[in-house]
């Protein structure tokens, strides 16, 4: 139940390849996040899974059925749009009932299911209201209830939290995650916000320019990025990258610490770090500075935990280091991850 297989899917708009030969398969019941900057093809891919966009090449398979040429209504999927797309002329009740009525389910059965779905998202008291009378958070819940009322095998979400204000976003994120765990429906979620992706996803699919860069758990993507794009897109501030011949050496800001604080049983690389300025953020300090000779100095960021109270001043240089095990190597030309231990 709920297995989506994307086989060699491409989408061309004129000469532009919005999605470029994507292969992907979901695990049953997982929360899969499609992450990438705008224009990377994640929304186009989602729309092709839904059936509102037709792929130029490739096949779409849902639960073993080839659905590539089927219209959305025959695919047993549900979708929540960024704008929620609530029918403005219908009450919340009618909105949620819509997918059932469209399939000819009779009134009594519809009522039971609508009440069940509304209860799941705690919006029973809103059933008689119209969408324009609801707040952003309430509209989002109505959209979710409408999607769930059919108990689809796949659940698609297109940046559903981006229209909520920041405070609401974090609590909505938590509720969404809990809800998905409870119901266990395979969910594919599109976002450009990497914090959201890391928080929600069982697995994350990082995309750029229509292609998949890496698929993995949040930890895999963060600690073992497949290329420089993933390395710099995920994580804020992004991974530091230094020139080293035909290789780029990468290390995360939180692994770049004063030499005394680095525990490196397997070896340590030291860099003289000239500090440019500091940001005090409470739980941590971000230290911006440069590493290397004056002529080819590279900008580097260090992330110091609040517990590390070593005083630092702008304009001075300090010995900083990275443990060898935290160092990653990328081929300079292709950006891809390279195996091996640095010298």
């Amino acid at each position, binding site marked *: 139940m709920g297995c989506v297989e994307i086989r060699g899917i491409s989408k061309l708009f004129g000469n532009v390849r919005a999605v470029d030969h994507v292969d992907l398969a979901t695990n049953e019941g997982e929360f899969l996040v499609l992450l990438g900057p705008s224009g990377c093809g994640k929304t186009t891919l989602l729309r092709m899974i839904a059936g509102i966009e037709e792929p130029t090449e490739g096949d779409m398979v849902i639960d073993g059925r080839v659905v590539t*040429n*089927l*219209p959305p*209504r*025959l695919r047993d999927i549900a979708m929540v749009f960024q704008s929620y797309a609530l029918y403005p002329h219908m009450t919340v009740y009618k909105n949620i009932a819509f997918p059932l009525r469209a*399939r*000819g*389910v009779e009134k009594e*059965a519809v009522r*039971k*299911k609508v009440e*069940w*779905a509304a209860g*799941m998202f705690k919006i029973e008291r809103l059933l008689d209201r119209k969408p324009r009378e609801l707040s952003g958070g309430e509209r989002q819940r109505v959209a979710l209830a409408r999607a769930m009322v059919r*108990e689809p095998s796949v659940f698609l979400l297109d940046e559903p939290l981006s229209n909520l204000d920041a405070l609401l976003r974090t609590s909505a994120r938590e509720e969404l995650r809990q809800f998905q765990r*409870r*119901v266990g429906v395979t969910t594919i979620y599109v976002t450009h916000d990497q914090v959201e992706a890391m928080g929600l996803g069982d697995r994350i699919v990082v995309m750029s320019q229509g292609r998949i860069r890496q698929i993995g758990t949040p930890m895999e993507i963060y600690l073992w990025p497949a290329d420089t794009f993933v390395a710099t897109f995920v994580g804020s501030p992004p991974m530091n990258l230094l020139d080293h011949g035909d290789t780029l050496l990468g290390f995360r800001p939180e692994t770049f610490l004063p030499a005394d604080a680095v525990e490196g049983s397997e070896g340590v690389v030291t860099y003289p770090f000239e500090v440019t300025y500091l940001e005090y953020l409470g739980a941590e300090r971000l230290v911006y500075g440069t590493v290397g000779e004056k002529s080819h100095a590279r900008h580097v960021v260090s992330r110091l935990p609040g517990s590390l109270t070593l005083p630092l001043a702008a304009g001075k240089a300090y010995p900083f280091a990275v443990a060898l095990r935290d160092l990653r190597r990328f081929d300079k030309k292709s950006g891809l991850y390279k195996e091996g231990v640095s010298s």
Partner: protein
Amino acid sequence: MSAPSVSEPAAVAARGGILDRESALAKMMIAPAILYIVAMIGVPFVLAVLYSLSDATTGDPSLKFVGLRNFAAALADPVFRLSLWNTVFFTLASQCIVVLLSRLLATALLKNFRGKWLVRFLIMLPWTAPISLGTIGWLWMLDSIFSPIDWVLRYVGLLGVPGALLGAGTNLYYLGVPGLAISSIILVDVWRILPLATVIQLAGLSSIPKDLMEAAEVDGATPWRRTLMITIPLTLPITSIAFLFGVVFTFTDLVVVYVLTRGGPVHMTQVLSSWTFFKGIEGGDLAQGAAISLFMFPVLAAVAILILRMARRTEVV
């Protein structure tokens, strides 16, 4: 938590039908409009061209090719030349007046005041009432004997008394004297188009974002400068559209001329549309009538292209 179980009616068509397919549906839905327009506008237009190149009459409607004889005959006919001139003159004269007046009126209508809806209704009457019926009202106003306008002129002594400014006769023959007849036609043309032009200009004026004007005020621009450097350039496209539409309607107008003067006196107010009617329909000379009407086409084509260009330029901000 699981949902109450419910059985969905079976047999959703397994493959999706024509009502799903976008391109088929798109073509199906636009087809009737296209077919109708081709059949009822495209084909007749071609027929008009064919007629103009033939010698068809209502008595003998067969199409025998005679080349450009009809066009040559038209150009040689003094009445045709007069109607061509009149058409251009009436149109340009009335529409230039309309552009200025409608701009003035639109500016006034930007403000809020009590009874605005009534004023709007009255101002719009010339356009919202059927054109032939509104013109009938003018027929009486411009009557050679009973004109109320003449009555007022006589009352204030501008007319009907020896030595009066407008003469000693009891009436001005608005529709009988060539100069006055022409002015009357132009007047009614202005009267009719003014509401339309006003509403279009009003839409243009109200679409200028408030902050642009406020920024200009803060920058120290006087009302004159603001009008010259902001309002006029920004509303130029929409003003042009109003002008061009007015041109189209006046250029092709038959009603005003037909109802007021029938093209008289002695063809002095004849325009292309009315002359086409008299020659082609009443006179039965289909070929000649078609040829006369086709002289309108180049101007209309140019106007339509201009309108399209202007419409593209109306993205204000």
